């Protein structure tokens, strides 16, 4: 079940993990948060002075933790501003709205072994996997790819989490194919991180004959900016401008339109909206090649216009 509505919360603590990484701890205004599934993410609504962001972040707290949720956020130079706001403006005691948690990245219950491959900050969903896997006594290994400068930071995070962990810095690392070769039957691989890493994991697994059901990817990237464009909404006749740092979904929300969404990372397909005219630049992970070529649907959370304008069935 996907719960609707938001959970009022306050910032209870902010830890600096590295120059670009901070952990934010949120506590509910009243009562308890709902239990989250391993790999769950929440939408955090950030109200800045000029604009509102709704960004999806993986929970790094154990799934049964209901007294507080925590997320880890990297301050990205070329961001659309959400991570800057979190890093530079959010203070303990500030109020935030948190969406109810949803998981598009569950642990496969029939798997006999789990190989987790994280890249950079893509480690975050695995931090909620680890306590569950350990409690179940599951066979697993975790491989974290990162730059040499961050091996210590991620090492500390994983020391807290425990388990069979290998950290691969940029100068000495095993290839993904080496990790995946020679895994027993019933192994599942999960990967979260930069698109190139996830593509490499998938390609290596398929090349070794892994069935597609045993390969799990979490696309946490969220929207990236691009050329500004405009959309016309066919049903209401309204026109809305999408700026270079805004996603189409954010522009719709800023205009007061209740557009459907869930993951805000192009992974779940909840936001798919009909396209009546215009050319789409597809950036989602949901549509098939045929659907992309057809051009009749757009994932509003990540995809943009290739033409100057789009006409949407909204």
């Amino acid at each position, binding site marked *: 079940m996907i719960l609707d509505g938001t959970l009022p919360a306050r910032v209870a603590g902010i830890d600096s993990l590295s120059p670009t990484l901070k952990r934010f701890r949120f506590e509910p205004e009243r009562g308890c948060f709902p239990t989250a599934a391993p790999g769950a993410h929440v939408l955090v609504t950030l109200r800045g002075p000029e604009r509102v962001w709704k960004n999806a972040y993986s929970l790094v707290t154990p799934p049964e933790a209901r007294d507080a949720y925590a997320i880890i956020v990297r301050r990205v130079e070329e961001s659309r501003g959400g991570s800057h706001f979190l890093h530079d403006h959010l203070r303990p005691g500030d109020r935030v709205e948190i969406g109810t948690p949803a998981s598009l990245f569950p642990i496969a219950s*029939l798997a006999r072994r789990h190989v987790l491959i994280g890249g950079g900050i893509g480690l975050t969903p695995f931090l909620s996997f680890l306590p569950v896997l350990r409690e179940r006594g599951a066979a697993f290994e975790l491989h974290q790819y990162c730059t040499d400068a961050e091996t210590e930071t991620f090492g500390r995070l994983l020391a807290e989490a425990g388990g069979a962990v290998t950290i691969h810095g940029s100068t000495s690392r095993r290839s993904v194919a080496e990790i995946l070769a020679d895994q027993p039957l019933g192994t599942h691989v999960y990967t979260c991180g930069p698109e190139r890493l996830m593509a490499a994991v998938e390609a290596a697994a398929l090349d070794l004959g892994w069935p597609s059901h045993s390969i799990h990817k979490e696309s946490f990237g969220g929207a990236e900016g691009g050329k500004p464009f405009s959309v016309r909404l066919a049903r209401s006749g309204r026109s809305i401008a999408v700026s270079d740092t805004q996603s189409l979904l954010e522009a719709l929300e800023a205009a007061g339109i209740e557009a459907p969404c869930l993951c805000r990372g192009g992974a779940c397909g909840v936001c798919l909206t009909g396209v009546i005219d215009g050319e789409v630049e597809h950036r989602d992970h949901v549509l098939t090649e045929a659907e992309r070529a057809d051009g009749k649907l757009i994932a509003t959370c990540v995809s943009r216009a290739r033409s100057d304008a789009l006409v949407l069935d909204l």
Partner: protein
Amino acid sequence: MTDQGIKSRPIYATLRRDSSGRRHLYVSAGSGPPPDALAQDGLESWTVAPTTCEGTLPRPEGVGERRFRSTRYLMETLGRRLAGERMGLRLYVEGPEDFLWDVYGVAQAHGLGRQEIFLKQSGTLARRVQCVHCKTFNEGVTTTIVRCAGCGANLFVRDHFSRRLSAFQGVKIDAEQPGDVPQAERAYP
């Protein structure tokens, strides 16, 4: 009476090589060769050849060809083999329905999933029937009604097939009127 309109019954396609796999193992309850669509380089073929036909079959030729004297021996060897197998295997199974799902159960217990196992029914249509009352398995049932070997009940053989038990379900046909048992028909040759 043979089609009871039960939609959950498994449907079997012909076996074709799944080229996404890296190693391919064909397991058959019979002694015949694998279908041509599978028989390419690198296919291992495990068959069952009872002792009675040992002198009559040609000698195994292929590298990966192996014959077993009983399905039970094949099944035990398969379990040991899968315990040491790595990701990338595809398993193709051919034989009567109970054999297919017995193998499926062994494969599943060793971590193979439904994208890695392919089943094709062949040979006898005789059914393994579980008595839902006393849980006895009645092997090789060819008729629509059978006396349970465990409790003696007159069982109607339903089309309800359990993949987990590799068996059809048999329910007492004269529960309302004890002794009112219709004539059994031979339906599953």
